[in-house]
């Protein structure tokens, strides 16, 4: 079945190759999207780090994603405890409500937020973007936190309680440390979800709260700015580092045939 292997490798190359193209592009000295580059220099890296039109959206994205992460976790963790540990009237409704943002196309949401936020001054504003991003991050974090909670052995809590620990002490000394890795993953997902979100940001972030994806979108659409290749390379490098860490820490999957 070598043919099948070759097909899979070809498809793998189709997936991988376009992403790697951004690296030589970022080092190109051409002012347009020419590939292969005619010459190499680091000038566009300097341009990225020294141009406020690029650094401000980057900082905005970091602020918005961090705030989104904290608000999302503050909402999701208690709600997940309720949904995983209790069976209560309205439970199905709550579950559906928390998952709903994952089912709605972002362009529809962008329209809704634009209509509701602009009269109250929440467009062109960090808070507005944080609110919208929190809504779309809730289901993602909820999936991970509730999966973590379902895997938690409640006997650990019972043991702590029977040894005399109160509910708060049990939570902070037993429950939380065991669940922390899952919570961190959920928080990371919420952060990335906000950092990558483009469509809602395009329509409601405006100039003042413009995020990095919004700036990237504009620069593709309006000016074909070569700094875009630098930003793409930096983002892709973060993914490469993340993938390398994940690959190194996780055991290789073994498939016996």
């Amino acid at each position, binding site marked *: 079945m070598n043919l099948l292997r070759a097909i899979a490798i070809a498809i793998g190359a189709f997936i991988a190759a376009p*992403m790697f193209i951004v690296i030589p592009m970022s080092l190109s000295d051409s002012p347009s999207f020419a590939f292969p580059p005619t010459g190499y220099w680091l000038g566009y890296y300097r341009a990225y780090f020294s141009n406020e039109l690029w650094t401000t959206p980057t900082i905005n994205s970091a602020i918005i994603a961090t705030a989104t992460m904290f608000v999302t976790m*503050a909402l999701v963790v208690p709600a997940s405890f309720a949904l995983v540990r209790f069976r209560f009237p309205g439970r199905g409704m709550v579950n559906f409500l928390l998952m709903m943002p994952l089912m709605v196309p972002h362009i529809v949401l962008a329209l809704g937020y634009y209509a509701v936020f602009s009269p109250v001054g929440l467009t062109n504003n960090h808070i507005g973007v944080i609110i919208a991003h929190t809504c779309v991050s809730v289901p993602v974090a909820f999936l991970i936190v509730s999966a973590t909670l379902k895997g938690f052995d409640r006997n650990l809590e019972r043991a702590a309680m029977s040894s005399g620990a109160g509910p708060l002490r049990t939570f902070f000394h037993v429950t939380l440390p065991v669940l922390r890795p899952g919570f961190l993953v959920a928080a990371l997902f919420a952060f990335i979800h906000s950092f990558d979100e483009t469509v809602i940001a395009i329509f409601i972030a405006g100039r003042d709260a413009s995020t990095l994806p919004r700036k990237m979108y504009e620069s593709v659409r309006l000016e074909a700015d070569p700094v875009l*290749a630098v930003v793409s390379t930096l983002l892709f490098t973060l993914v490469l580092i993340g993938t390398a860490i994940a690959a190194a820490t996780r055991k290789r999957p073994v498939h016996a045939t």
Partner: protein
Amino acid sequence: MSATSATPAGASGGRKASRPWRSRGNISAWTLSAPAVLFIAVLFVYPLLDVVVISFTDPTLSLVNYREFFSSPLYSRVLGNTFWFAFMVTVICLLLGYPMAYVVVRYGGTLGFALLLVVAMSFWTSFLVRTYSWLVILGSKGPVTKLLDWVGFDPVPQILFNSFATTLGMVHILIPYMIMSIYAAMQKIDPNHLRAAASLGATPFQGFRTVFFPLSLPGVVNGCTLVFIICLGFYVTPVLLGGPRDQMIAGLIGEQIEELLEWGFASAMAVVLLATTMALLAIYNRLVGLDKLWG
């Protein structure tokens, strides 16, 4: 459309006997979920409802926006385009994704691991970055144009800003979802089933066709649903890689917001998109169960 009922947690047992405990549990559960519920209800559901209301009331209380949308050949074409495009992207993702997932699961080893890493890498890379890559690859100064020029095309055909470029870009962006869904289903298949089929005299192909393939179908359904639904409402990539003639419904909605044209009409289109998406998810929920889609 309830995505729940799957795991009755915590408090089960005798209803009457544990009543005091249960009502206290209810209050705790409601209190714990109240912040999230209020946040989503006010800051997510309300804007959506507003879109629905605007679609029926702007400019006047009527169905005029929907009538305009469904009666104009231009908009029917956009709607048709959107479905056709989502269908094509789904089919191509399936045709490419299935063999890839198959090789990862059945052959494993270094190749399988490397392929999985590539898929994960693609999944985590912002789709804006990947869209930009395609602008470079297919652009007028890109490698494909140069190759076509070298081969002898004169004039070199335009390969960017058309439905071909959009389809290619969308397949590239969405194929990780397809592969991961199919991979998840294939991984659950017990290899002993195939050994059993072989020992009963099935050829490898018969084994695949009658045993492996049917068992991998839940992953196929899952992946197709995800890709199709994401594709229906996708905004950025079609706008950047497509031409004006192959516009999709999301692009049309975006255009209306940007140019501050008819709010009611934009909302009606958004409601059509929303209703279509919800209907597909409802069907999926009926057949498979919504909780499995993102699991």
